[in-house]
């Protein structure tokens, strides 16, 4: 028998809110302060930044998965309130998850670093919040910093986002300043949730994960009706039915409650085996008495970026499959399927929401599962209309058919914030990346917001790094997918000693194909070590060779003498040479180092 902790609730006393901020503007620290102030955790229990529980999240200072915590706050008005803090991922790759988290709230704290001002992500998330009709409470954070300029920040928020900042809260999450004001503002300014317990159940899924003991744990916001153990529920998008085993809340510890009613945020455990069954944005309803309409805004999100992942040593293939399987248990936005490459052997084509998502998955595979991986260069998904008018999606450049009617590539609308001193080179960069300018606005006196339509493919390469280096780190960027557009694209093949290396194929814009072919061949020449045979590197478009380089055959090793019988030194030298070979991938007679497969990323 589960013992429930007694608590009082009426929708009037519930506030659901998110915190939105640009990376490093202090979101997690502020969340910690709120938990501390409301006594959800004693300072002794606090490990820094409770919400970012994954190691990688802490290291990168970002939130990868959404979380929800219930706080109890005794307000100035003498009443006790339940505050549900729904944390949101802070990166463009996860913008759909952000949107579902925001849809679960009535309000949001908009955190802006007083020393940095408005950044691209601040804007993107604030727009999302506005779209969901959330009450936005601006919080100007880090006012303790010497470089803080709250007035300028206030002006920037008003100009860029168009919200009134006269009652913005000045805070220093680090020093705990402004915490009470923020809690009062949440109670007084964010509306209480609406909804009716007597309506059929309508609960929005905004996160889910797999637990080894309990199966899938689903995080929901109840909009209508109620849910309790024993209730038969149905997932509206998939149509699957389950029986609820337990409902509860996070305080932040997991605590079962008798029921979750409209307006509340909590978890549902219902014997669900796979996270792929609980799609973010789907609506849970009663199986016997279903809601007429699901919650709006559900999308079946598709990965935007793909790459091939191969074990460096072929005997690790099974381990890699198991590891991918385990990661997918907790991340339904990441997909994989087996793939065979002539050059790399057996591996997997994996799809990710974006580059950061890809890096995180790769890093977790290597770190948590101790795998040595070889990855091909990331690619976007191309939409190809074949000669028989069948439309296919190409996730691996080597699979592009020889002939086709139309090829389309994904475009994004990128929003870039940059101090005006750096605007020139930023515009050049966007131009170089085939960008089309859509907007150019001054924000405050020193900052500029530019919007460009860009092929996603172009920002996969080195765009972000160059943006950062051009602007000495000051520029920030966010983007959203705007659709597929026809482009003049061609497949560039790389041949080594006359044979196409499928893992090196790429799809490039025709105007850049010669340059890319030459540069890539040149890079490969530098990367491929000398072997016993000459290695001829060719770049080809169709049957036309557009570049040729060669790595001369290894003719001699150093014939050093063994100084005075120092045999150990010689042995170690040979062993080192052998270790180096281990990291190579055998391709026919050739040995290719890992870097070769990422050479394309080094081509500007």
């Amino acid at each position, binding site marked *: 028998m589960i013992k429930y902790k007694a608590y009082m609730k009426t929708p009037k006393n519930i506030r659901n809110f998110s915190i939105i901020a640009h990376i490093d503007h202090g979101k997690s620290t502020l969340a910690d302060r709120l938990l501390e102030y409301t006594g959800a955790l004693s300072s002794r229990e606090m490990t820094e930044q409770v919400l970012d529980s994954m190691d990688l999240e802490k290291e990168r200072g970002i939130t990868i998965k959404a979380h929800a915590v219930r706080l109890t706050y005794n307000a100035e008005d003498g009443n006790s309130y339940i505050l549900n803090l729904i944390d949101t991922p802070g990166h463009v790759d996860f913008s759909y998850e952000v949107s579902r988290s925001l849809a679960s709230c009535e309000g949001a704290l908009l955190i802006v670093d007083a020393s940095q001002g408005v950044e691209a992500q601040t804007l993107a998330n604030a727009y999302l919040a506005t779209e969901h009709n959330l009450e936005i409470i601006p919080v100007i954070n880090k006012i303790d910093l010497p470089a803080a300029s709250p007035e300028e920040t206030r002006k920037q928020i008003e100009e860029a986002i168009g919200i009134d900042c006269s009652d913005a809260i000045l805070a220093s999450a680090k020093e705990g300043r402004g915490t009470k004001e923020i809690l009062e503002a949440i109670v007084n300014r964010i509306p209480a949730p609406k909804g009716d317990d007597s309506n059929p159940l309508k609960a929005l899924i905004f996160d889910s994960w797999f637990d080894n003991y309990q199966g899938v744990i689903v995080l929901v916001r109840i909009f209508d009706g109620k849910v309790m153990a024993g209730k038969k529920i149905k997932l509206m998008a998939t149509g699957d039915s389950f029986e609820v085993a337990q409902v509860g809340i996070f305080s932040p510890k997991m605590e079962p409650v008798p029921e979750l009613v409209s307006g509340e945020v909590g978890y549902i455990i219902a014997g669900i085996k796979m996270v792929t069954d609980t799609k973010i944005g789907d609506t849970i309803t009663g199986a016997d008495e279903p809601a007429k309409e699901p919650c709006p805004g559900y999308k079946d999100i598709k990965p935007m970026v793909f790459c091939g992942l191969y074990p460096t040593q072929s005997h690790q293939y099974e381990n890699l499959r198991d590891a991918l399987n385990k990661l997918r248990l907790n991340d339904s936005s990441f997909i994989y399927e087996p793939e065979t490459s002539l050059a790399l052997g057996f591996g997997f084509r994996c799809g990710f929401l974006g580059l950061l998502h890809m890096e995180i998955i790769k890093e977790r595979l290597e770190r948590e599962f101790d795998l040595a991986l070889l990855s091909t260069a990331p690619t976007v998904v191309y939409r190809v209309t074949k000669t028989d008018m069948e439309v296919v999606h190409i996730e691996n450049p080597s699979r592009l058919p020889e002939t086709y009617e139309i090829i389309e590539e994904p475009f994004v609308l990128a929003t870039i914030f940059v101090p005006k001193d750096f605007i020139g080179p930023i515009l050049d960069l966007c131009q170089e990346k085939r960008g089309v300018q859509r907007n150019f606005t001054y924000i405050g006196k020193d900052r500029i917001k530019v919007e460009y339509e860009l092929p996603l493919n172009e920002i996969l390469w080195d765009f972000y790094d160059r943006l950062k280096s051009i602007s000495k780190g000051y520029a920030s960027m966010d983007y959203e997918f705007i659709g597929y557009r026809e482009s003049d694209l061609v497949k560039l093949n790389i041949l080594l000693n006359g044979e196409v290396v499928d893992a090196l194929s790429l799809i490039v814009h025709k105007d850049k194909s010669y340059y890319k072919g030459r540069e890539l061949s040149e890079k490969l020449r530098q990367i491929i070590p000398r072997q016993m045979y000459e290695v001829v590197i060719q770049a080809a478009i169709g049957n036309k060779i557009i570049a040729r380089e060669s790595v001369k055959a290894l003719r001699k090793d150093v*014939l050093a003498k063994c100084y*005075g*019988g120092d*045999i*150990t030194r010689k*042995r170690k030298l040979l062993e080192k040479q052998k270790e180096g070979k281990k990291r190579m991938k055998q391709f026919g007679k050739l040995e290719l180092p890992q870097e070769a497969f990422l050479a394309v990323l080094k081509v500007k």
Partner: protein
Amino acid sequence: MKKDTAGTLRSIYIGGGTPTLLSDKCFGELFRCLKDNYNFSSDIEITVEANPGTIDGSKIDAIISLGVNRLSLGVQSFNDNELKTLGRSHDSEDAFRSIETIKIAGMKNFSIDLMYGIPGQTMDSWRDTISKAVRLSPAHISAYELTPEEHTPFFKLLETHKVSMPDEELILEMYNHAIDYLAGFGYEHYEISNFALPEFKCIHNLNYWDRGEYIGTGAGAHSFIGKMRSGNIKDINAYIEQLNNGIIPESESTKLTSEETLKEFIFLGLRKTEGISISKSQQTGLNIVDASGTLINEGLVEIVEDFLRLTRKGIVISNTVIVKLFEKLGL
């Protein structure tokens, strides 16, 4: 180790630095000490390393009288510009004079060290150096490729682009020329870098490749006793201090694993042009014939009677071939 436990010495090599700087008295003491502690085999080879210009007739007479029967002379080149590049203190005249002195003293078994791949060296100057060497009829010639060592003044010159190493193809041509030219004068190419007239192979060096035991004394010297390979500390003052304090002045010592032993057997054996004995390798459990299949097809190694050896094509990329062989053997 005392006479009864140390066994019999088959060779002594006094080298490293310039041992000929020792006074006759010091040499005398050294040999008295050696003879007190070790038995010498009847055909013992005793080599002293010398640099041109550091020996004269009386020094040579003195060491011969102590039992030294082989001299190794660090000539390096007969081209004075190349000697300067190498930072040597002697010139070609010194070399000629020293060899003349050795011959007058009646020492037939002497070796000349030569070096190819010196910055600025041309094929012509190498041909010239090697033919001058042959005309002096040494019993033995070592021809080493110059390998720049880190932390040397020469390395610094290379790093700052004050000098540059010759082209790889040229170095290869120099090496091949040495093999062919010396063969014409009866010098057998018995080890990667060594050439000898019949009966004059260096016993001391062959012992390294055959994995025989040896004791190294002096700073930076290496030993191999039982399964232990060890090296003395390189700093000479620290070496002396530790000895005086009764500490064995070693900086490294490794007990070879069986896998390391097999690796040594392969890479040391292949340094000799006769190669590795197949029957001997079978005794150690290695199937080197099967493992060399591809390498034989590629013309990098060959089997001649009971021996697996590097071909002319394989010898110049011996490291690469050896690593491949390790892989095939699962070492």
